[in-house]
């Protein structure tokens, strides 16, 4: 009983941090209708600055901590003003969510460059000695955590409910168009909500810092826990966020204590998936009804770049010839390996493009299927000496089975909740990859996976693998192009832009979304298997949530709904760090920053830019297009 009480106190302490972050989610969501995933990043930046000021530079804590919070809020306001606020005007809410995922990656990247990858420890504010209440010992930092969370909650409630500023925030939440007609500066309110969320996150970050070890990517955990807590509690409601946070803290602490620390996240995620099935809007229903999302309708869908047929064929031939000669010309194994990796990731990216670019279904957990495919085929080929081809097929089978189960959840969801469910799925696979030691080798990875081979012929070198991957990519690309340029692709695009109108024309939206999902899962699983065969090794972080976010970045940077765009993104983000080794430390930052920049300034991606350049080089696109369609019309 005593132990139980002790664990519950621990749970409440952790939970109140989750609650604080969840509150930030809820605040931004209510004001803007979008999710801001960058908060965890700010939490860790605040903690790191606090460490630098308070420990490395020896400032007194009473000065270091507030300075760290203030500095972080300053950074947050700058980032918010230049990315989040303009993005809200240009992008759909699902894309804003991915943009903030990019912000999170970018902030992590900065932290990595500034503070390195080693862990830091912050001393507690009021000494190490815990307070004792009879037999129960409570660390003093717990009081700091509980106290500051309570202050945050009260202050936020007061601001929103009792002040004129709060009235403006609430007006934006209910109807931004009307609010702006009433003279409320909506972008400023948006920025204010972003800044407040950053403030809450920064406070949570510095307060929790002494109870945990700090690393550049710890922020991701804060974001995820806060997001999960907000979703469980009900993202549109402040009390929901608080209840969700405390609940999540208690459940994870109890699960860690009584079941296994390896599965405590898994249990939290299963609870989340259950909530998404039975109460998609969370345990606490918001008093304010689900707001009419006027913003999403106004924003135009970015038009995908399209290469005129007169250019496409010569360029395709040129690319084919060039690619075939690469292994002859390029002798550097490092670069060749980079190309192979990019080619393998391109398989997943083509599938992801069908799912996200064409069908408009957000997926933040695509690497989860790479993991299922990779681990299944790796395990089978190590333990049962199954031929790689069969192992790949088995991996795809297992992946499709998991996808079917997941689709029970995802087919009912859209936008934000879909993003959340796929993220949760990816994280669930992460924790299984770490937890199922016997199958996956746990955190240290699965070693001894054989190289890819067909009928006894082994493709062990990067050069040999280059041809295998190249051939696979070409086949998949040609097949998917065939489907995406005709009825199948049109049906997906129609569903993406207007589900009801698509259904009214007899397009079975459920079947098509499922088909797009299954295609993407098959390709991700195949690519995961090839990845494992190429490295002869697979570890959780190679196919973890970080990878999922990186895949999204690659797709957006390269250009959505083009199929080929993913290759540009994959090459850029894989080859740059390989070619310029000293830049490798900037990779995380670059992948986040490029994602954000592409969303804001290059909506058609690199591919779009290349296409436009090619068109300008050759001549007017309209003429080229007209002439091709006229010939095809004449062919009738």
């Amino acid at each position, binding site marked *: 009983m005593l132990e139980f009480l002790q664990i519950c106190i621990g749970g409440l302490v952790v939970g109140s941090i989750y609650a604080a972050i969840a509150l930030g989610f809820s605040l931004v969501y209510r004001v803007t209708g979008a999710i801001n995933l960058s908060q965890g990043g700010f939490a860790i930046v605040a903690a790191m600055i606090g460490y630098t000021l308070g420990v490395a530079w020896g400032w007194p804590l009473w000065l270091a901590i507030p300075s760290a919070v203030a500095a972080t809020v300053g950074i947050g306001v700058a980032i918010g003003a230049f990315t989040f606020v303009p993005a809200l005007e240009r992008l759909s809410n699902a894309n804003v969510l991915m943009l903030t995922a990019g912000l999170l990656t970018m902030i992590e990247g900065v932290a990595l460059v500034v503070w390195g990858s080693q862990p830091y420890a912050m001393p507690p504010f009021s000494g190490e000695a815990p307070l004792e209440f009879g037999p129960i010992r409570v660390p003093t930092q717990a009081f700091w955590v509980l106290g500051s969370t309570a202050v945050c909650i009260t202050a936020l409630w007061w601001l929103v409910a009792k002040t004129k500023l709060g009235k403006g925030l609430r007006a934006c939440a209910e109807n931004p168009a009307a609010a702006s007609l009433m003279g409320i500066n909506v972008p400023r309110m948006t920025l204010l909500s972003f800044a407040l969320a950053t403030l809450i996150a920064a406070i949570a970050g510095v307060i929790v810092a002494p109870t945990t070890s700090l690393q550049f990517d710890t922020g991701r955990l804060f974001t995820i826990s806060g997001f999960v807590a907000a979703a469980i509690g009900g993202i549109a409601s402040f009390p929901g966020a608080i209840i969700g946070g405390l609940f999540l803290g208690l459940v994870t602490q109890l699960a860690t204590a009584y079941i296994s620390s390896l599965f405590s996240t898994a249990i939290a995620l299963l609870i989340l998936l259950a909530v998404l099935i039975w109460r998609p809007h969370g345990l606490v229903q918001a008093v304010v009804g689900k707001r009419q999302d006027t913003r999403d309708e106004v924003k135009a869908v970015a*038009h*995908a770049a399209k290469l005129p047929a007169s250019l496409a064929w010569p360029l395709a031939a040129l690319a084919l010839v060039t690619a075939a000669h690469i292994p002859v010309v390029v002798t550097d194994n490092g670069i060749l390996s980079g190309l192979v990796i990019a080619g393998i990731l391109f398989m997943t990216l083509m599938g992801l493009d069908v799912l996200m670019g064409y069908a408009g279904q957000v997926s933040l957990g695509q690497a989860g299927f790479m993991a299922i495919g990779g681990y299944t085929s790796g395990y089978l080929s190590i333990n049962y000496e199954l031929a790689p081809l069969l192992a790949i097929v088995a991996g795809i089978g297992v992946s499709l089975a998991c996808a079917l189960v997941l689709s029970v959840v995802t087919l009912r969801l859209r936008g934000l909740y879909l993003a959340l469910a796929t993220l949760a799925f990816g994280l669930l696979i992460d924790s299984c990859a770490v937890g199922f030691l016997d199958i996956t080798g746990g955190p240290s990875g699965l070693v001894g996976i054989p190289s890819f081979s067909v009928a006894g012929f082994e493709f062990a070198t990067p050069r040999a693998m280059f041809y295998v991957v190249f051939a696979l990519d070409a086949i998949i690309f040609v097949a998917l192009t065939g489907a995406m340029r005709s*009825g*199948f692709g049109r049906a997906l*695009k129609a569903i993406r832009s207007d589900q009801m*109108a698509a259904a*009214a024309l007899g397009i*079975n939206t459920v079947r098509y979304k499922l088909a797009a999902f299954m295609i993407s899962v098959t390709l991700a699983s195949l690519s995961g298997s090839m990845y494992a065969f190429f490295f002869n090794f697979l570890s959780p972080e190679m196919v973890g949530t970080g990878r999922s976010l990186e895949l999204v970045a690659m797709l957006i940077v390269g250009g959505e709904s083009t199929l080929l765009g993913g290759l540009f993104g994959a090459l850029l983000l894989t080859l740059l760090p390989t070619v310029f080794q000293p830049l490798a430390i900037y990779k995380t930052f670059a992948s986040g920053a490029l994602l954000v920049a592409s969303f804001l300034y290059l909506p058609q991606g690199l591919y779009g830019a290349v296409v436009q350049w090619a068109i300008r080089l050759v001549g007017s696109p309209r003429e080229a297009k007209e002439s091709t369609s006229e010939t095809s*019309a004449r062919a009738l």
Partner: protein
Amino acid sequence: MTALNAQSEASIGENSVLSVRHLTKSFGGLKAIDDVTFDVAPHQVTAMIGPNGAGKTTVFNLVTNILSKDAGQVLFLGRDLAGMSPVKIADMGLIRTFQSARVFPGMTAIENVMVGGHRLASHSGASEMLWLKASRNEERRVLGRAEQMLELVGLAPFKHTHATELPMGAQKLLEVIRALMAQPKLLCLDEPAAGLNDTETQELANLLRAIRTLGIPVLIVEHNMSLVMNVADHVVVMDSGAIIAAGAPSEIQKNSRVIEAYLGGENHAAS
């Protein structure tokens, strides 16, 4: 009222395309649709008119199961539509358009029209992936038909224009021909002339007459009286969720109840 219903019930042909029987729907305590019964005859343009809030669009949504009805029956080509999904209903050939033009953003005009051909496509995604001759021929056929459709309404020069960049009138026409691409057995148009100027309305009238010539039955909800009187063979008048009159356009124009409902008792003939 009952006499009217009995009368229309008596006149149901065995071969009516759509029979709506005693359709009823309440929102909260308010009866939005009260015992609505009418038929759409083959080869005819049936127009449903009535003041704002009479429940015309609600009837559309009840017929296509976008809303669920409280009572009543809807028969399409003799089959009861109860419990069918909107997709299934569309798949049977009952194709509808929406009040606000719902062209697909991010797609060009021609692509928009081609989506309409989806219902009839025999090809599968798999055969497209293999670039089979059958699906490429099919694609060419759909493209050819879509081009003809654009030609029909004079939008051929804009086929590669993004649909959302077209003027409102063109978007409305695009939505109608997109529905027509699906070769509907019944075409339901929800206020196609809303937001159109006179020239565009004239083009729409021409299109509707062309559709009637093709023998496709049309059910149209419309505010524009001159359009209705021009193209409709049969007019159903709704007011406050109930049918107050039905008949040929010339009869409706003289019907005192209609004039009263429409013009608030003022003695104007609908022109």
